[in-house]
Protein backbone atom coordinates (compact mmCIF):
# COMPACT_ATOMS: atom_id res chain seq x y z
CA UNK A 1 0.00 0.00 0.00
CA UNK A 2 1.21 3.49 -0.84
CA UNK A 3 2.39 5.18 2.33
CA UNK A 4 1.73 8.72 3.48
CA UNK A 5 4.93 10.74 3.23
CA UNK A 6 6.46 12.72 6.07
CA UNK A 7 8.55 15.55 4.67
CA UNK A 8 10.77 17.96 6.57
CA UNK A 9 10.98 21.35 4.92
CA UNK A 10 14.28 23.18 5.03
CA UNK A 11 14.20 26.94 4.36
CA UNK A 12 17.67 28.02 3.29
CA UNK A 13 18.94 31.57 3.60
CA UNK A 14 22.43 33.05 3.75
CA UNK A 15 23.87 33.91 7.14
CA UNK A 16 25.86 37.11 7.75
CA UNK A 17 28.97 35.46 6.30
CA UNK A 18 27.18 34.35 3.14
CA UNK A 19 27.02 30.69 4.18
CA UNK A 20 23.89 28.60 3.76
CA UNK A 21 21.77 28.39 6.89
CA UNK A 22 18.35 27.05 7.75
CA UNK A 23 15.79 29.47 9.14
CA UNK A 24 12.35 28.80 10.55
CA UNK A 25 9.60 31.39 10.78
CA UNK A 26 6.06 32.27 11.75
CA UNK A 27 3.53 33.54 9.18
CA UNK A 28 6.42 33.56 6.66
CA UNK A 29 8.25 36.16 8.83
CA UNK A 30 10.30 36.43 12.05
CA UNK A 31 12.92 33.94 10.97
CA UNK A 32 15.11 32.18 13.47
CA UNK A 33 18.46 30.46 12.74
CA UNK A 34 18.08 26.69 12.98
CA UNK A 35 21.16 24.97 11.56
CA UNK A 36 23.29 23.85 8.63
CA UNK A 37 21.20 22.51 5.72
CA UNK A 38 23.47 19.65 4.68
CA UNK A 39 23.87 18.40 8.26
CA UNK A 40 20.15 18.62 8.78
CA UNK A 41 19.47 16.66 5.61
CA UNK A 42 21.79 13.89 6.81
CA UNK A 43 20.14 13.75 10.21
CA UNK A 44 16.62 13.65 8.75
CA UNK A 45 17.59 10.95 6.29
CA UNK A 46 18.87 8.81 9.18
CA UNK A 47 15.65 9.53 11.06
CA UNK A 48 13.50 8.18 8.24
CA UNK A 49 12.33 11.25 6.31
CA UNK A 50 10.56 10.17 3.12
CA UNK A 51 11.61 13.16 1.09
CA UNK A 52 13.05 16.67 1.51
CA UNK A 53 11.80 20.03 0.45
CA UNK A 54 14.46 22.74 0.20
CA UNK A 55 13.28 26.30 -0.26
CA UNK A 56 15.63 29.10 -1.20
CA UNK A 57 14.20 32.03 0.74
CA UNK A 58 16.95 34.47 -0.21
CA UNK A 59 15.47 35.22 -3.62
CA UNK A 60 18.87 36.54 -4.73
CA UNK A 61 21.44 35.44 -7.28
CA UNK A 62 23.97 34.63 -4.52
CA UNK A 63 21.32 32.67 -2.68
CA UNK A 64 20.53 30.69 -5.78
CA UNK A 65 24.16 29.69 -6.35
CA UNK A 66 24.51 28.66 -2.73
CA UNK A 67 21.28 26.73 -2.89
CA UNK A 68 22.43 24.74 -5.91
CA UNK A 69 25.63 23.78 -4.14
CA UNK A 70 23.65 22.67 -1.08
CA UNK A 71 21.43 20.58 -3.36
CA UNK A 72 24.49 19.00 -4.99
CA UNK A 73 26.00 18.09 -1.64
CA UNK A 74 22.77 16.59 -0.38
CA UNK A 75 21.89 14.78 -3.63
CA UNK A 76 25.32 13.14 -3.77
CA UNK A 77 24.94 11.54 -0.37
CA UNK A 78 21.28 11.21 0.49
CA UNK A 79 19.34 8.81 -1.70
CA UNK A 80 15.77 10.00 -1.23
CA UNK A 81 13.76 12.45 -3.35
CA UNK A 82 14.56 16.15 -3.16
CA UNK A 83 12.22 18.97 -4.09
CA UNK A 84 13.76 22.39 -4.51
CA UNK A 85 11.91 25.69 -4.74
CA UNK A 86 12.38 29.42 -4.52
CA UNK A 87 12.74 31.91 -7.35
CA UNK A 88 12.18 29.44 -10.21
CA UNK A 89 10.78 31.36 -13.18
CA UNK A 90 12.14 29.84 -16.39
CA UNK A 91 12.74 26.47 -18.02
CA UNK A 92 16.44 27.22 -17.64
CA UNK A 93 16.00 27.62 -13.86
CA UNK A 94 14.22 24.26 -13.75
CA UNK A 95 16.97 22.60 -15.78
CA UNK A 96 19.73 24.04 -13.58
CA UNK A 97 17.98 22.86 -10.42
CA UNK A 98 17.35 19.34 -11.72
CA UNK A 99 20.92 19.13 -12.94
CA UNK A 100 22.18 19.96 -9.45
CA UNK A 101 20.41 16.82 -8.28
CA UNK A 102 16.86 17.87 -7.45
CA UNK A 103 14.15 15.40 -8.46
CA UNK A 104 11.38 17.98 -8.49
CA UNK A 105 11.12 21.74 -8.56
CA UNK A 106 8.52 23.67 -6.65
CA UNK A 107 7.21 26.77 -8.42
CA UNK A 108 4.97 29.45 -6.90
CA UNK A 109 5.12 32.99 -8.26
CA UNK A 110 6.80 32.02 -11.54
CA UNK A 111 3.78 29.90 -12.52
CA UNK A 112 1.17 32.43 -11.39
CA UNK A 113 2.84 35.10 -13.49
CA UNK A 114 3.32 32.88 -16.52
CA UNK A 115 1.21 29.67 -16.34
CA UNK A 116 2.78 28.35 -19.59
CA UNK A 117 5.89 27.64 -17.52
CA UNK A 118 4.04 24.57 -16.16
CA UNK A 119 3.39 23.22 -19.69
CA UNK A 120 6.95 23.96 -20.79
CA UNK A 121 8.48 22.34 -17.71
CA UNK A 122 6.27 19.26 -17.93
CA UNK A 123 6.99 18.85 -21.63
CA UNK A 124 10.75 19.21 -21.20
CA UNK A 125 11.28 17.20 -18.01
CA UNK A 126 8.04 15.30 -17.30
CA UNK A 127 5.11 16.11 -15.04
CA UNK A 128 6.64 14.11 -12.22
CA UNK A 129 9.17 16.84 -11.52
CA UNK A 130 6.86 19.86 -11.67
CA UNK A 131 5.41 20.72 -8.26
CA UNK A 132 3.12 23.72 -8.15
CA UNK A 133 3.12 25.42 -4.80
CA UNK A 134 0.38 27.74 -3.57
CA UNK A 135 0.61 30.18 -0.68
CA UNK A 136 -3.07 30.41 0.20
CA UNK A 137 -4.84 32.97 2.31
CA UNK A 138 -8.39 32.78 3.66
CA UNK A 139 -10.79 35.42 2.45
CA UNK A 140 -14.26 36.00 3.83
CA UNK A 141 -15.75 38.06 1.00
CA UNK A 142 -17.64 37.08 -2.15
CA UNK A 143 -14.84 37.57 -4.70
CA UNK A 144 -13.81 33.92 -4.93
CA UNK A 145 -15.20 31.01 -6.96
CA UNK A 146 -15.19 28.09 -4.52
CA UNK A 147 -16.59 28.68 -1.08
CA UNK A 148 -16.40 26.44 1.96
CA UNK A 149 -17.87 26.80 5.37
CA UNK A 150 -15.28 27.72 8.02
CA UNK A 151 -16.67 28.10 11.54
CA UNK A 152 -20.05 29.11 10.15
CA UNK A 153 -18.65 31.66 7.72
CA UNK A 154 -18.31 31.40 3.97
CA UNK A 155 -14.64 31.37 3.04
CA UNK A 156 -12.55 31.09 -0.11
CA UNK A 157 -8.83 30.76 -0.59
CA UNK A 158 -6.74 33.23 -2.52
CA UNK A 159 -3.35 32.54 -4.13
CA UNK A 160 -0.75 35.00 -2.92
CA UNK A 161 2.66 35.87 -4.34
CA UNK A 162 6.01 36.79 -2.82
CA UNK A 163 5.59 34.77 0.35
CA UNK A 164 2.11 36.09 1.09
CA UNK A 165 2.95 39.76 0.67
CA UNK A 166 0.86 40.21 -2.48
CA UNK A 167 -2.65 39.03 -3.30
CA UNK A 168 -3.66 37.90 -6.78
CA UNK A 169 -7.44 37.51 -6.63
CA UNK A 170 -6.97 33.99 -8.05
CA UNK A 171 -8.97 31.23 -6.36
CA UNK A 172 -6.67 28.44 -5.12
CA UNK A 173 -9.08 25.67 -6.16
CA UNK A 174 -9.36 27.02 -9.72
CA UNK A 175 -5.61 27.46 -9.91
CA UNK A 176 -4.99 23.92 -8.63
CA UNK A 177 -7.22 22.51 -11.39
CA UNK A 178 -5.54 24.66 -14.02
CA UNK A 179 -2.06 23.68 -12.80
CA UNK A 180 -3.02 20.02 -12.99
CA UNK A 181 -4.41 20.34 -16.50
CA UNK A 182 -1.23 22.13 -17.59
CA UNK A 183 0.89 19.23 -16.38
CA UNK A 184 1.73 19.73 -12.69
CA UNK A 185 2.61 16.38 -11.14
CA UNK A 186 2.06 17.38 -7.53
CA UNK A 187 0.55 20.26 -5.56
CA UNK A 188 2.12 21.79 -2.53
CA UNK A 189 -0.41 23.66 -0.39
CA UNK A 190 0.86 26.27 2.07
CA UNK A 191 -1.33 28.44 4.25
CA UNK A 192 -0.33 31.97 5.16
CA UNK A 193 -2.85 31.89 8.01
CA UNK A 194 -1.55 28.66 9.53
CA UNK A 195 2.19 29.09 8.85
CA UNK A 196 4.26 28.67 12.01
CA UNK A 197 1.22 28.68 14.32
CA UNK A 198 1.44 24.96 15.21
CA UNK A 199 -2.36 25.01 15.47
CA UNK A 200 -2.71 22.40 12.76
CA UNK A 201 -2.91 22.44 8.98
CA UNK A 202 -5.64 24.44 7.28
CA UNK A 203 -7.96 21.45 6.82
CA UNK A 204 -10.72 23.18 4.78
CA UNK A 205 -8.06 24.52 2.40
CA UNK A 206 -6.24 21.19 2.00
CA UNK A 207 -9.51 19.29 1.58
CA UNK A 208 -10.79 21.74 -1.05
CA UNK A 209 -7.64 21.16 -3.11
CA UNK A 210 -7.56 17.37 -2.59
CA UNK A 211 -11.22 17.11 -3.67
CA UNK A 212 -10.61 19.17 -6.81
CA UNK A 213 -7.58 17.35 -8.29
CA UNK A 214 -6.31 13.82 -8.72
CA UNK A 215 -2.59 14.63 -8.47
CA UNK A 216 -0.86 14.07 -5.12
CA UNK A 217 -1.15 16.89 -2.58
CA UNK A 218 1.46 17.86 0.01
CA UNK A 219 -0.09 19.67 2.97
CA UNK A 220 2.05 22.35 4.54
CA UNK A 221 1.97 25.08 7.22
CA UNK A 222 0.72 24.82 10.79
CA UNK A 223 1.84 21.35 11.84
CA UNK A 224 2.21 21.28 15.63
CA UNK A 225 2.61 17.55 16.09
CA UNK A 226 1.78 14.03 14.90
CA UNK A 227 -1.95 14.51 15.60
CA UNK A 228 -2.03 17.31 13.03
CA UNK A 229 -0.49 14.99 10.44
CA UNK A 230 -3.13 12.39 11.31
CA UNK A 231 -5.88 14.96 10.85
CA UNK A 232 -4.66 16.19 7.47
CA UNK A 233 -4.35 12.60 6.16
CA UNK A 234 -7.75 11.44 7.40
CA UNK A 235 -9.90 14.59 7.24
CA UNK A 236 -8.42 16.34 4.21
CA UNK A 237 -7.05 13.42 2.16
CA UNK A 238 -3.50 14.76 1.80
CA UNK A 239 -0.82 12.43 0.44
CA UNK A 240 2.07 13.94 2.31
CA UNK A 241 2.52 16.12 5.36
CA UNK A 242 5.25 18.69 5.51
CA UNK A 243 6.61 20.23 8.68
CA UNK A 244 9.51 22.44 9.62
CA UNK A 245 9.65 23.80 13.14
CA UNK A 246 8.40 20.73 15.04
CA UNK A 247 11.24 18.72 13.55
CA UNK A 248 13.88 21.45 13.49
CA UNK A 249 13.40 22.39 17.12
CA UNK A 250 13.31 18.74 18.15
CA UNK A 251 9.80 18.84 19.58
CA UNK A 252 8.94 15.65 17.74
CA UNK A 253 11.16 13.31 15.81
CA UNK A 254 10.21 11.79 12.48
CA UNK A 255 10.27 8.34 14.14
CA UNK A 256 7.80 9.45 16.82
CA UNK A 257 5.53 10.98 14.21
CA UNK A 258 5.58 7.84 12.10
CA UNK A 259 4.94 5.47 14.97
CA UNK A 260 2.04 7.65 16.15
CA UNK A 261 0.53 7.37 12.66
CA UNK A 262 1.30 3.66 12.37
CA UNK A 263 -0.52 2.95 15.64
CA UNK A 264 -3.57 4.63 14.13
CA UNK A 265 -3.45 2.58 10.93
CA UNK A 266 -2.08 5.29 8.69
CA UNK A 267 0.32 3.55 6.27
CA UNK A 268 3.85 4.91 6.73
CA UNK A 269 7.33 3.71 5.81
CA UNK A 270 8.91 2.57 9.06
Amino acid sequence: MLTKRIIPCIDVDLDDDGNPAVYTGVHFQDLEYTGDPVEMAHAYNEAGADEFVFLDITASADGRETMLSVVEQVADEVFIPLTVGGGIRTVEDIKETLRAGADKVSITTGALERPELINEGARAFGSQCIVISVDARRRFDDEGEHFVDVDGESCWFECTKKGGREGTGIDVVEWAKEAESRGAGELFVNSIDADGTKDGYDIPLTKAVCDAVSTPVIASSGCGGPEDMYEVFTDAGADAGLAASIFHFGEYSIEETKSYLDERDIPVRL
Partner: protein
Amino acid sequence: MESTAVSEQELASVAIVDYGLGNLRSVTRGLERAGASVEITEDPAEFRAADGVVLPGVGAFREGVENADPLREDLLAVADRGQPLFGICLGMQMLLTTSEEAETAGDASVTGLDLIPGTNVRFAEGQKVPHMGWNELAVERDHPLVEGIDGEHAYFVHSYYAVPDDESATVATTDYDRRFPSIVANEAGNVFGTQFHPEKSGETGLQILRNFVEICADAE
Protein backbone atom coordinates in the same frame (compact mmCIF):
# COMPACT_ATOMS: atom_id res chain seq x y z
CA MET B 1 27.08 -5.27 3.93
CA GLU B 2 29.39 -2.31 4.37
CA SER B 3 28.71 0.08 1.54
CA THR B 4 31.84 2.14 2.17
CA ALA B 5 34.07 -0.93 2.09
CA VAL B 6 32.46 -2.07 -1.14
CA SER B 7 32.72 1.30 -2.83
CA GLU B 8 36.46 1.50 -2.33
CA GLN B 9 37.01 -1.71 -4.24
CA GLU B 10 35.22 -0.88 -7.50
CA LEU B 11 33.78 -4.30 -8.02
CA ALA B 12 32.49 -3.78 -11.53
CA SER B 13 32.18 -1.26 -14.33
CA VAL B 14 28.75 0.02 -15.34
CA ALA B 15 27.76 1.99 -18.44
CA ILE B 16 24.73 4.25 -18.03
CA VAL B 17 23.06 4.74 -21.38
CA ASP B 18 22.87 8.46 -22.16
CA TYR B 19 20.06 9.01 -24.63
CA GLY B 20 19.36 12.60 -23.71
CA LEU B 21 17.01 12.06 -20.83
CA GLY B 22 16.99 13.74 -17.47
CA ASN B 23 19.13 13.75 -14.44
CA LEU B 24 21.66 10.95 -14.21
CA ARG B 25 23.45 12.35 -11.19
CA SER B 26 21.66 10.35 -8.50
CA VAL B 27 21.82 7.03 -10.31
CA THR B 28 25.54 7.61 -10.96
CA ARG B 29 26.27 8.41 -7.31
CA GLY B 30 24.11 5.50 -6.14
CA LEU B 31 25.98 3.03 -8.34
CA GLU B 32 29.32 4.45 -7.21
CA ARG B 33 28.23 4.06 -3.61
CA ALA B 34 27.31 0.47 -4.45
CA GLY B 35 30.85 -0.19 -5.67
CA ALA B 36 30.72 0.46 -9.42
CA SER B 37 32.90 2.59 -11.61
CA VAL B 38 30.43 4.45 -13.81
CA GLU B 39 30.58 5.75 -17.36
CA ILE B 40 27.70 7.83 -18.74
CA THR B 41 27.84 7.15 -22.46
CA GLU B 42 26.09 6.80 -25.80
CA ASP B 43 29.00 4.89 -27.29
CA PRO B 44 28.06 1.24 -28.01
CA ALA B 45 31.73 0.25 -27.64
CA GLU B 46 31.50 1.34 -24.00
CA PHE B 47 28.40 -0.80 -23.48
CA ARG B 48 30.39 -3.76 -24.74
CA ALA B 49 33.37 -2.96 -22.55
CA ALA B 50 31.33 -2.56 -19.36
CA ASP B 51 30.39 -5.38 -17.00
CA GLY B 52 26.80 -4.19 -17.02
CA VAL B 53 24.55 -1.59 -18.60
CA VAL B 54 21.88 0.64 -17.01
CA LEU B 55 19.00 2.01 -19.08
CA PRO B 56 17.67 4.93 -17.06
CA GLY B 57 14.66 7.05 -17.87
CA VAL B 58 11.94 9.39 -16.82
CA GLY B 59 9.12 10.83 -18.89
CA ALA B 60 7.02 9.42 -21.69
CA PHE B 61 7.36 6.03 -23.41
CA ARG B 62 7.20 7.37 -26.95
CA GLU B 63 9.90 10.01 -26.40
CA GLY B 64 12.04 7.48 -24.57
CA VAL B 65 11.80 4.87 -27.30
CA GLU B 66 12.40 7.43 -30.03
CA ASN B 67 15.38 8.97 -28.26
CA ALA B 68 16.92 5.56 -27.66
CA ASP B 69 16.13 4.32 -31.17
CA PRO B 70 19.61 4.96 -32.64
CA LEU B 71 20.97 2.63 -29.93
CA ARG B 72 18.29 -0.07 -30.33
CA GLU B 73 20.50 -2.68 -32.03
CA ASP B 74 23.33 -2.03 -29.59
CA LEU B 75 21.05 -2.51 -26.59
CA LEU B 76 19.66 -5.72 -28.07
CA ALA B 77 23.26 -6.85 -28.55
CA VAL B 78 23.98 -6.22 -24.84
CA ALA B 79 21.11 -8.53 -23.92
CA ASP B 80 22.11 -11.05 -26.54
CA ARG B 81 25.68 -11.28 -25.27
CA GLY B 82 24.29 -12.10 -21.83
CA GLN B 83 25.54 -8.86 -20.25
CA PRO B 84 23.41 -7.56 -17.37
CA LEU B 85 20.97 -4.89 -18.62
CA PHE B 86 19.09 -3.02 -15.92
CA GLY B 87 16.16 -0.74 -16.85
CA ILE B 88 15.01 1.80 -14.29
CA CYS B 89 11.49 3.30 -14.30
CA LEU B 90 10.81 4.29 -17.94
CA GLY B 91 13.95 2.29 -18.80
CA MET B 92 12.21 -0.81 -17.43
CA GLN B 93 9.04 -0.08 -19.40
CA MET B 94 11.16 0.21 -22.55
CA LEU B 95 12.31 -3.41 -22.07
CA LEU B 96 8.74 -4.48 -22.91
CA THR B 97 7.00 -4.47 -26.28
CA THR B 98 4.42 -1.68 -26.27
CA SER B 99 2.73 0.91 -24.09
CA GLU B 100 -0.78 2.33 -23.95
CA GLU B 101 0.99 5.64 -23.47
CA ALA B 102 2.27 5.57 -27.06
CA GLU B 103 -1.24 4.70 -28.30
CA THR B 104 -2.88 7.63 -26.54
CA ALA B 105 -0.24 9.81 -28.15
CA GLY B 106 -1.66 8.57 -31.47
CA ASP B 107 1.22 6.33 -32.47
CA ALA B 108 0.75 2.68 -31.68
CA SER B 109 3.64 1.69 -33.93
CA VAL B 110 6.29 2.70 -31.38
CA THR B 111 7.73 -0.49 -29.99
CA GLY B 112 10.02 -1.02 -27.06
CA LEU B 113 13.01 -3.35 -27.02
CA ASP B 114 10.74 -6.40 -26.67
CA LEU B 115 13.32 -8.14 -24.47
CA ILE B 116 10.56 -8.94 -21.98
CA PRO B 117 7.42 -9.37 -24.13
CA GLY B 118 4.46 -7.49 -22.71
CA THR B 119 2.72 -4.16 -22.54
CA ASN B 120 2.66 -1.13 -20.24
CA VAL B 121 -0.84 -0.13 -19.17
CA ARG B 122 -2.23 2.91 -17.38
CA PHE B 123 -3.60 2.85 -13.85
CA ALA B 124 -7.40 2.90 -13.76
CA GLU B 125 -9.53 6.02 -13.80
CA GLY B 126 -10.30 7.30 -10.35
CA GLN B 127 -6.92 6.41 -8.93
CA LYS B 128 -4.49 9.13 -7.99
CA VAL B 129 -2.02 9.27 -10.86
CA PRO B 130 0.95 9.38 -10.87
CA HIS B 131 1.48 6.65 -8.30
CA MET B 132 3.98 8.74 -6.36
CA GLY B 133 5.70 7.85 -3.13
CA TRP B 134 6.95 4.92 -1.07
CA ASN B 135 5.31 1.55 -1.55
CA GLU B 136 6.09 -2.00 -0.51
CA LEU B 137 7.90 -4.67 -2.51
CA ALA B 138 6.60 -8.24 -2.30
CA VAL B 139 9.16 -10.61 -3.79
CA GLU B 140 7.44 -13.29 -5.89
CA ARG B 141 10.42 -15.33 -7.01
CA ASP B 142 14.20 -15.58 -6.69
CA HIS B 143 16.48 -13.31 -8.62
CA PRO B 144 19.93 -12.04 -7.57
CA LEU B 145 18.63 -8.45 -7.83
CA VAL B 146 16.32 -9.00 -4.82
CA GLU B 147 18.86 -10.75 -2.59
CA GLY B 148 18.11 -9.63 0.97
CA ILE B 149 14.96 -7.76 -0.08
CA ASP B 150 11.33 -8.51 0.81
CA GLY B 151 8.69 -6.27 2.31
CA GLU B 152 10.80 -3.10 2.15
CA HIS B 153 9.54 0.17 0.68
CA ALA B 154 10.80 1.76 -2.52
CA TYR B 155 10.13 5.13 -4.15
CA PHE B 156 7.82 5.14 -7.18
CA VAL B 157 6.75 7.83 -9.64
CA HIS B 158 4.78 6.54 -12.62
CA SER B 159 1.40 6.47 -14.33
CA TYR B 160 1.82 3.25 -16.33
CA TYR B 161 2.89 -0.20 -15.17
CA ALA B 162 4.35 -3.22 -16.92
CA VAL B 163 2.32 -6.34 -17.66
CA PRO B 164 4.64 -9.05 -19.03
CA ASP B 165 2.95 -11.66 -21.25
CA ASP B 166 4.62 -14.40 -19.26
CA GLU B 167 3.74 -14.16 -15.57
CA SER B 168 7.03 -15.78 -14.60
CA ALA B 169 8.79 -12.60 -15.73
CA THR B 170 7.49 -10.92 -12.57
CA VAL B 171 10.08 -10.91 -9.79
CA ALA B 172 8.31 -8.59 -7.33
CA THR B 173 4.91 -6.95 -7.10
CA THR B 174 3.51 -3.86 -5.39
CA ASP B 175 -0.04 -3.01 -4.36
CA TYR B 176 -1.66 0.20 -5.58
CA ASP B 177 -5.35 -0.71 -5.62
CA ARG B 178 -4.23 -3.63 -7.77
CA ARG B 179 -1.08 -5.72 -7.56
CA PHE B 180 1.30 -4.76 -10.36
CA PRO B 181 4.80 -6.01 -11.29
CA SER B 182 7.40 -3.71 -9.76
CA ILE B 183 10.45 -5.78 -10.73
CA VAL B 184 10.61 -7.86 -13.91
CA ALA B 185 13.29 -10.06 -15.48
CA ASN B 186 13.70 -12.11 -18.65
CA GLU B 187 13.97 -15.89 -18.67
CA ALA B 188 17.76 -15.89 -18.99
CA GLY B 189 17.92 -13.55 -15.99
CA ASN B 190 20.34 -10.99 -17.45
CA VAL B 191 17.71 -8.43 -18.50
CA PHE B 192 15.70 -6.92 -15.66
CA GLY B 193 14.17 -3.72 -14.45
CA THR B 194 12.57 -1.91 -11.54
CA GLN B 195 9.56 0.37 -11.87
CA PHE B 196 10.73 2.29 -8.81
CA HIS B 197 13.87 4.38 -8.53
CA PRO B 198 16.50 2.45 -6.53
CA GLU B 199 18.67 5.60 -6.49
CA LYS B 200 15.87 7.36 -4.57
CA SER B 201 14.84 4.47 -2.34
CA GLY B 202 17.22 4.99 0.57
CA GLU B 203 18.96 1.95 2.03
CA THR B 204 16.64 -0.50 0.23
CA GLY B 205 17.54 1.07 -3.09
CA LEU B 206 21.26 0.96 -2.31
CA GLN B 207 20.92 -2.74 -1.47
CA ILE B 208 19.37 -3.34 -4.91
CA LEU B 209 22.15 -1.34 -6.57
CA ARG B 210 24.74 -3.38 -4.63
CA ASN B 211 23.02 -6.55 -5.83
CA PHE B 212 23.19 -5.24 -9.39
CA VAL B 213 26.90 -4.48 -9.05
CA GLU B 214 27.44 -8.03 -7.75
CA ILE B 215 25.56 -9.42 -10.74
CA CYS B 216 27.86 -7.37 -12.99
CA ALA B 217 30.96 -8.56 -11.15
CA ASP B 218 29.85 -12.20 -11.45
CA ALA B 219 29.14 -11.78 -15.16
CA GLU B 220 32.75 -10.88 -15.92
